[in-house]
């Protein structure tokens, strides 16, 4: 009887795992519609031990600042957050003060002051309508969560940024639209942002479009999940603890049950 039920048990577990796999496949693929395959890059932050590459993140911040920030905001990020990608307080202060925010002075007038580390990243447009009006009706999305807000976000963004090619002859590209082989529908409102040597990296890295796309993706991946490194580090300790706990409870159970299991 016991043998029979344990066979049944393993049988069941197999089926259970199978069903979970099916469920997970379905949950992954429900962005469906037309499938576009993005090149799969080897990101330093993927995998359960992955961490961010500080140098790449800092270059990414530079790309964001010099290329993206003209149109795209990062409203959920504060300047003080840059500490965790390796900047010191003075650098952050200087970086923040290049922007200005509105405040109300003691006389009740709206005045501008330089942004402080405690301020959120200043968005390029005062509101969504202004953003649309300045971009021919297309809204440049806020980038704070962009990597989490797209399926396979990091690979998607890298592909998108490097996906500008000449449109096939049968494809009409209307004014104000651009052809991108990785964008859903292929017509995107954003002009190609990255060109060879579009920025000059302080560390001497060659600024190819591929390199810049990788760097800005690394930066934005961190912006989406600033807790990631802490999370994974804590996760390793928790898993080790649970492994030990599982072993302890398993052997305790075996010992306690021994007289019952004995024929």
């Amino acid at each position, binding site marked *: 009887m016991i043998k029979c039920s344990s066979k*049944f048990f393993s049988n069941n577990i197999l089926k259970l795992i199978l069903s979970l796999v099916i469920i997970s496949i379905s949950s992954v693929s*429900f962005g*469906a519609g037309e499938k576009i395959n993005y090149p799969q890059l080897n990101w330093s932050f993927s995998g359960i031990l992955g961490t961010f590459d500080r140098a790449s993140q800092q270059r990414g911040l530079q790309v964001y600042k010099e290329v993206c920030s003209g149109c795209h905001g990062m409203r959920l990020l504060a300047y003080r957050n840059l500490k965790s990608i390796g900047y010191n307080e003075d650098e952050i202060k200087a970086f923040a003060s290049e922007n200005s925010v509105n405040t109300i002075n003691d006389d009740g007038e709206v005045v501008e002051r330089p942004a402080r580390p405690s301020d959120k990243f200043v968005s390029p447009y005062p509101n969504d309508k202004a953003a649309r009006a300045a971009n021919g009706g297309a809204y440049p999305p806020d980038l704070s969560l962009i990597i989490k*807000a797209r399926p396979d976000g990091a690979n998607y963004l890298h592909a998108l940024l490097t996906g500008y090619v000449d449109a096939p002859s049968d494809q009409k590209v209307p004014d104000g639209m651009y052809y991108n082989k990785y964008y859903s529908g292929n017509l995107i409102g954003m002009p190609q942002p990255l060109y060879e040597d579009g920025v000059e990296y302080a560390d001497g890295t060659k600024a190819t479009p591929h390199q810049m796309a990788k760097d800005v993706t690394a930066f934005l991946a961190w912006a989406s999940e600033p807790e990631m490194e802490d999370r994974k580090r804590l996760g390793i300790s928790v898993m080790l603890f649970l492994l030990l706990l599982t072993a302890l409870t398993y052997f305790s159970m075996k010992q306690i049950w021994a007289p019952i299991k004995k024929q």
Partner: protein
Amino acid sequence: MSKSKFKNPVVKWIDHRLPVFSFMDHELNHYPTPKNLNYFWNFGSLAGFALVTMIVTGIVLSMNYTAHVDYAFDSVERIMRDVNHGWLIRYIHMNGASFFFIVVYIHIFRGLYYGSYKAPRELLWILGVLILLLMMATAFMGYVLPWGQMSFWGATVITNLFSAIPLVGESIVTWLWGGFSVDNSTLNRFFSLHFVLPFVIVGVVILHLVALHRFGSNNPIGIDVKGTQDTIPFSPYYTIKDLFGLSVFLSFFAAAVFFFPNFMGHPDNYIEANPMVTPAHIVPEWYFLPFYAILRAIPDKLGGVLFMFGAIAVLFILPWLDRSSVRSSQFRPIYKIFFWILLFDCILLGYLGAMPAEGIYVILSRIATAYYFFHFLILFPLLPYIEKTKPLPISISEPILGGAATASAFATREKK
């Protein structure tokens, strides 16, 4: 037993006036439990653990959450970024919902396989289905709170279902929304209900446990306990087994929370709700997908809604639909096959619920839906007339082991 069983004078004093300790001793310690329960009997206590986890993390989240259309999304992101370990609390809560459903679905299929819903456990089963229904309502409203795109559009689609009710449908939807679209008042009431319903669930869970302890657990061979030789005290045997099960469960849970926290979520929910932009595919959380597939399989809106709720309604009357007096599938060779077909059918429905409602998916959804109702409404009542069940064992202990070992285990416990 005549003298107080407690040595501590304070406990003794209290227990004499308020017998909570006797109660706990009786229900959690001595509580006689069939000795042949397999690991599938772990999932009840796991569900209880999941419920408590959800309530504790939920209360902490509510301290930092703002239920307002202009602030909800940002307040969740503030929890993720600025609240100390807020990301941990939120990811536990978010993944906890999925794991709660995984555990409860396994618990339900356990009940289906071993016939745990049959007399005298009909009310136990019905209370369980009620818990499932409350969980679904709670989870649905909880998913709206972060106010992402899927939150908003999911809420819009699901609340709109009620407009299918003839005559009063539109008025009911307006009443549910508290306005003329999903808006701030909808978010506010969903938050309020999402907060209170878990405590209603706790109440029903208590009733579920009272009903369980009336006749005790069913068991893998599904025959009644014949005497003390068939049972062992709950503690230490099942407390340690439940603890082992909990450790395994926590390992899976922690792996999801720490390494794949967004695996079961939808990327679109990290885009703030925008009533002007409809996502390409509106999909509910995975645990609703089988029901969503049934809803879309029926070409008529009202029909779809009725069949979707009907899928739960058949569970309520299952104890009377199944006419077989044999509980466990181990002795029902034909039912056993159909059980696996039903499980496959439900997984297939889940898959189809995630696919766009077009082409082959629609046809498959209809077949799978038809099978679901065939299984409950035709197979359950009629199968006993065809099926030849295998002979049942005389008692739980006899096919497994002699009564001696168990009796001695009881004796050693009593001595302590």
